[in-house]
């Protein structure tokens, strides 16, 4: 179980402070699929990074399976079963896809069959990719799918994905949503997915709308999707006018 208690994060701006996240508290039960959604710049990625330890909160505590992990580093949290798929994964000259999957799995003797399974689940063929370097020769979408495969290989208890759909073509996206569904159905992991995609939102047990550094709405996909739509319209005077006209 993951618990966030009164999490705040602020950065210095001139002589003052700019609040990015303000007093966020939430509990995510095991095996749940939770989607963070909301407007750009609202604080979703910062919140996810705080869970992984990539960003340190300026206030509040984080508990993972009852253990206070607020002061633990990224490595320690990873070893406690938290993993994170980056929105824009880095590239590595000299590290192959196989190297990355091997590192992620923690199994030095990771078989080709296993690699193949991970890559197939993100719509890539092992024969084409295993020995390729994760460098600039790969497209953004390919790197993104390899990033997601590395999280699957990690097989951790909590998987965080930051906009997994970004840069991925429609066919691969369909395969990806199936993979999320499968993980969810088997109950093998808790998943936090940052997403704007209705298809992914509709898979969620709970949708959390993060905006202006706070939780704006929480609820099931059926409850939240209409609210997201009305919020979206509400911020645009032209769309609001059109909506009213209808």
């Amino acid at each position: 179980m993951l618990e966030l208690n009164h999490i705040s994060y602020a950065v210095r701006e001139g002589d003052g402070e700019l609040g990015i996240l303000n007093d966020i508290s939430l509990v995510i039960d095991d095996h749940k699929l939770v989607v963070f959604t909301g407007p750009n710049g609202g604080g979703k990625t910062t919140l996810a990074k705080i869970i992984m330890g990539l960003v340190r909160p300026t206030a509040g505590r984080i508990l993972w399976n009852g253990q206070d992990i607020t002061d633990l580093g990224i490595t320690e949290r990873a070893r406690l079963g938290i993993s994170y798929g980056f929105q824009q994964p880095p590239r590595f000259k000299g590290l192959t896809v196989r190297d990355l999957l091997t590192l992620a799995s923690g199994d030095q003797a990771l078989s080709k069959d296993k690699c193949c399974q991970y890559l197939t689940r993100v719509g890539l063929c092992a024969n084409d990719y295993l020995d390729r370097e994760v460098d600039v020769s790969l497209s953004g979408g390919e790197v993104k799918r390899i990033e997601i495969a590395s999280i699957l290989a990690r097989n951790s208890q909590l998987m965080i994905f930051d906009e997994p759909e970004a840069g991925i073509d429609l066919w691969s996206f369909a395969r990806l949503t199936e993979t999320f569904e499968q993980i969810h159905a088997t109950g093998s992991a808790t998943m936090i997915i940052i997403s704007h995609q209705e298809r992914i939102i509709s898979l969620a047990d709970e949708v959390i709308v993060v905006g202006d550094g706070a939780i704006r709405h929480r609820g099931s996909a059926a409850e939240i999707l209409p609210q997201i739509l009305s919020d979206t319209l509400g911020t645009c005077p032209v769309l609001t006018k059109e909506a009213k006209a209808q």
Partner: protein
Amino acid sequence: MMENEIDRELLEKIADMLGKPVGAFNIRKDTGCDGRQSTDHIHIDSRTDGHSGIDIRVDSGTVGETCHIPAIITKPGIQETVYNDFYIGDDCDITIVAGCGIHNCGEQASQHDGVHTFHVGKRSHVRYTEKHYGSGDGKGGRIMNPQTVVYLDEGATIQMDTSQIRGVDSTKRYTKIVCGKGAEAVVTERLLTHGDQTAESDMEIILDGEDAKGRVISRSVAQDDSSQVFYPRMVGNAQCFGHVQCDSIIMGQARIKSIPAITANCTEAQLIHEAAIGKIAGDQLLKLETLGLTEEEAEECILKGFLA
């Protein structure tokens, strides 16, 4: 041959040798010959011109054979210049494993300057690997200044992989490859310096013949207070294609200078160079940490991959 642990370690590091190699070999140890074997097609002989070193002659049509010619120095105060000449016939496909290891526990420097000249016959393919490694805790320097000059005849190719692994205090490399018609040279250079080591690599690829191809991939890591200078140069004298790519990771207080140059003396010459120097990117470290590696393990993993 290979009578002690130091010999064994050096030979394994520089030539992947775990005992007597298969095929032709010549093992040079502390200025002397520590073992030699010719085969029916590869003939190794001492030079007769007064220079130290060997002549290696490979018969035309020799395919699938290997020749090991490592040199090791296990004592302080040795300074040697060794001339090895390779005469490779036509239509060969062979592998040559060179390399130098210096173990120095003394106060005086030991230095090995290996001068290799290759004459590669028509349509022959040569894979040449050369590793340099230094060990021992003496204050005496471990110095290696290799010179490699290659002449590729029509349709010949060379794939040259050189690497300086660790422990070489000072190195000045000079590499020159002249490609004839349809010949191709692919050079991969890996270099790691640490402490206050210095390394200089001067390279010249001359694409002389029509349809000649040249490719240089240089990857280096400079740690601590070490310094590196690269001068890869590609010259196109005919319709040809050349590509120079230099990538360096800089760490600590190190200094790196990379000066690639391309020269076209023909309108049909197509030459490209790329050079980049940078530190390990923060997001690379973070990514590997999210996979459970410590920052030190992540750094080691990135460097190992980069220099692999």
